[in-house]
């Protein structure tokens, strides 16, 4: 039995995470899944949302590391988790105020979209910023605790 899990979070701008961890929670179409060491081989789809990493077995929830990810594909095998997404941002790198403003702008764009293409683009933006804002909030809550 392997005692740890190797996580690779690969984006088009390089590897965001490449290290041994204890647990990772991934948002998927059928709900969030938590992957621990010795998880069975699995291929599934990640959806835009918050990814949570627990580095050590004894870490409390307040020490979880959060990342905002866009959709992508997840592959689990032999104690390795590999997640391919377009974009991923550490919660530390996201400013809550900025995300709020960006989300508001994206929503305005959605309201004012003239055609289907613009609407699609605006919806994508809304999703993206909603996720980022959620991740930023998670981090703030963690600090309060």
């Amino acid at each position: 039995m392997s005692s740890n899990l190797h996580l690779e979070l690969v984006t088009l701008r390089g590897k965001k995470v490449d290290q041994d961890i204890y647990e990772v929670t991934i948002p998927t179409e059928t709900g969030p899944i938590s992957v621990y060491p010795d998880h069975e081989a699995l291929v599934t789809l990640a959806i835009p949302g918050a990814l949570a990493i627990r580095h050590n077995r004894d870490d409390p929830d307040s020490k979880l590391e959060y990342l905002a990810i866009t959709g992508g594909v997840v592959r689990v095998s032999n104690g390795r988790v590999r997640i391919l997404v377009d974009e991923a941002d550490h919660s530390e790198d996201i400013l809550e105020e900025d995300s709020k403003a960006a989300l508001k702008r994206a929503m305005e764009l959605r309201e004012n979209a003239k055609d289907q293409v613009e609407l699609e683009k605006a919806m994508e933006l809304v999703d993206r910023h909603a996720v980022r804002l959620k991740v930023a909030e998670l981090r703030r809550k963690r600090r309060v605790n």
Partner: protein
Amino acid sequence: MASTRQLKSRIRSVGNTRQITKAMEVVAASKMRRAQDADKAAASYTEAASELLSYFASQGITQKHSLFKVKHVHRRLLIVVASDRGLAGAYNNNIFKQYVQELKNDHAAGDKTPSVAFGRKAAQFVTRLREAELAGVYENVSDQLDGGELQAVLAMAVEKFEADEIEAVDIIYTKFISSIAQQVEVKRILPAGFTEVEVAEDLNEAVYEPNPKKVLDAVVYRLVEAQLYQTLLDAKASEHSMRMMAMKNASDNADELVDDLTLAMNKARQGAITQELAEISGGVEAMND
């Protein structure tokens, strides 16, 4: 021997040329660094994507997916990646040489090969050839690819592929190895997972959630797009490297030429002075007599 004044003006003009080539060298160098960084950053994603595609293929779940279907190739789509501007050494010519070679192989079947051109030079070249049929042109593609061109080109390729108009899609591009080494390569991106990559990990039967078809539908397109993206990044990095080298050589040659001309000018000037002195002393001698 040329006069001092002629030599002087040549030195000035070569010096001006050198200034331009030097500036282009510096610009290309900084663009090259940025392009290299982008290329390296995306490499791990593409590698993982290729491995995943091979993994899917090895699992035997891909037979039913249209993008994985391997067919007998009668007609294929060629994507030619060259530059918008020249002065990049052999960059464009190397690509064109390979392209003509590929066309020759296809032409035996008596068909025109549909081609998509990236870069103005590529478009100009493709239109001149009888064996090719221009299917699309993308000019002035920015170094920071935003995906618009990629999606357009891929959408067209996939549509033709699924309609059985073509049986394969190949890209001719310059693979970036290092700042001084680049190599023209032909890469097949459709059918997906065609170029087999070694799958590093176990080949356990994996569980697919929600089901294999949904997973494939959602990701295969993205993964193929990533491969296309990588080839364009490679091409950009190669272009800037080759332009930098070409301009560096041009600047070095200009330096050498200026040195040679300066030497020739000094000789000419000294010759003129010697001549004048000889004439003066000759004159003095004549007056003394």
